[in-house]
């Protein structure tokens, strides 16, 4: 047997053993670099959204018994502890509506992004890997799609499909996939030339196998980064649709529709109806953007080390 360093092998085995002994080690190294600010914002919102049923003091769709409409928050004159952040035009508790609205925004934001990401990545991979007329067709469709103003298109689809939360999710997915397709296609084009892909082809691997085992795992990083960066866009889009009345239908609370409801009262000084939902949107979107940025920096150098 040809001399192969025993030390090399011993080292490799030691690495393998270490790897299994400390899956926890991976987590701690991840934790060391975590972005504090975005998580400090997002985690509470996620918790609130998950446990809305238990946290919210009132049913967001029912008026509080015995409350007046347009009650201000508790620290202002006329407000009380019955409705901590005030009430809206139907005497419903603003705080509860905010809490449930968080759930709507986050669910729609996340699932909408998942739908968009899935469609976009799939088309990007097909376009980049198969090339030829498939590529041309998909790219021209992408171009055409991009030419449509996103929000207008979304509104159009919303009026066609009718309002419901899941319809909105689908619509947002259909509107925003194009960002993924372009970027992923670019990555696939360069991945396709990498030697490990060629090796799989030369070994006789079918196209399906190459796509699922070699291309897809290596573009997932980019997809995740893109997703985290665009989730904010989707959340704002949902808020916009709700604001315009074609989003999540009442009486289900959504931050966007709360903004719309409260708009007319701004003139009279009842600012809490719009500021709180607006702040909610602002914070969540800001946090996701920051998180996306962090992810991009974190994952990028590794991308290059492939």
């Amino acid at each position, binding site marked *: *047997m*040809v001399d*192969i360093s025993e030390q*090399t*092998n011993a080292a*490799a*085995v030691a*690495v*393998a053993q270490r*790897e299994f002994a400390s899956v926890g080690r991976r987590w701690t190294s991840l934790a060391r670099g975590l972005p504090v600010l975005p998580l400090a914002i997002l985690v509470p919102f996620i918790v609130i959204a998950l446990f809305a049923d238990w946290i919210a003091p009132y049913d967001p769709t029912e008026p509080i018994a015995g409350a007046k409409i347009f009650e201000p928050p508790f620290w202002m004159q006329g407000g009380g502890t019955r409705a901590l952040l005030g009430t809206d035009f139907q005497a419903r508790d603003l705080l509860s509506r905010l809490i449930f609205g968080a759930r709507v925004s986050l669910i729609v934001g996340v699932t909408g992004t998942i739908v968009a990401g899935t469609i976009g990545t799939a088309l990007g991979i097909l376009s980049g890997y198969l090339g030829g007329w498939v590529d041309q067709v998909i790219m021209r469709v992408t171009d055409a799609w991009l030419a449509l103003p996103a929000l207008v298109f979304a509104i159009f689809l919303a009026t066609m499909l009718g309002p419901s939360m899941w319809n909105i999710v689908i619509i947002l997915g259909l509107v925003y996939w194009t960002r993924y397709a372009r970027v992923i296609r670019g990555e696939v084009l360069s991945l396709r030339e*990498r*030697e*490990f*892909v*060629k*090796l*799989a*082809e*030369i*070994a*006789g*691997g*079918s196209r399906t*196998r190459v796509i699922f*085992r*070699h291309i897809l*795992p*290596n573009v997932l990083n980019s997809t995740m980064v893109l997703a985290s960066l665009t989730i904010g866009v989707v959340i704002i889009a949902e808020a916009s649709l709700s604001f315009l009345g074609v989003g999540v239908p009442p009486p289900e609370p959504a931050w966007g529709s709360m903004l719309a409801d409260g708009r007319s009262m701004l003139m009279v000084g009842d600012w809490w109806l719009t500021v709180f939902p607006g702040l909610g949107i602002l914070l969540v979107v800001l946090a996701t953007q920051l998180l996306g940025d962090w992810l991009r920096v974190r994952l990028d150098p590794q991308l290059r*080390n*492939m």
Partner: protein
Amino acid sequence: MPAPLLELENLQKYFPVSTGPLLRRKLGWIKAVDGVDLAVWPGETLGLIGESGCGKTTTSKLILLQEAPTAGAIRFGGEDISRLQNQELMRYRREVQVVFQDPYSSLSPRMRVGDIVAEPLEIHTDLSREALHERVAEVLELVGLQPEVARLFPHEFSGGQRQRIAIARALATHTRLIVLDEPVSALDVSIRAQIMNQLEHLQQTLGVSYLFIGHDLATVAHISHRIAVMYLGQIVELADSLELCARPLHPYTQALFTAALPSHPDQRHEKLTIAGEVPSALDPPSGCRFHPRCPHAMPQCAHEAPVRKEVAPQHTVACHLY
């Protein structure tokens, strides 16, 4: 006399060059491979040496069916590979594999080593999971790695180890021919010898044939039984390795020897017999393609392309000097 494992007969690959996407006027042809005849016998290493633009990469792509020839034939086990379909095609892919130059991009970064090595087996066989594990372990040991490393990812390995993994993968399906495209050029000097020795040992044990493509004469000569020298898409000389080193006949081969780096300071006095650069394959010189740079060029060389003929036992040259 056993039949050759791989035979290239008058192989040609021309790439069209056209202007712009709209007009598509043909400017001409890049004659990357122009009339190549080669054979690789079972259990032997054929070295293919040449500089950039000589066509060795294109030749390997043709053999690996990544490109289709413009003319000529490639026969494996007697059968023309361009005619292969389905099962026979899969059999060819199973028996002919490749190892590339760059160890850092040959292995799929998100797959475990065991899966990478098992992939050809998964594609071509129906083996059960246990049988796959066994074969992977077997083949990893063959290349000098411990079977436990199958659980690891490529980035935990050095360049030399990665090349071993690539070789293991190439051997997994009882391959008969491995195309090695500059397999050690990207490795550290001290690791090169390890891999070269490993490759030789594997050939002795398994009887696999190699097509060893390289640019470093000493490396190629060391591992090859026979060497083919390529220039601008053609084979200019083909001989047994030691014979070629003792008596290089073609002026280009001789130039390669004078250009080769000495292995000892006392050897440094050879005068370089070549100047200029390799001309473009788009418009190769007429007649013998080497004549503009040849120190022995005769008037005949510009008009008539020399035919490769046997000048000494098992030693062929394409040159009007002979």
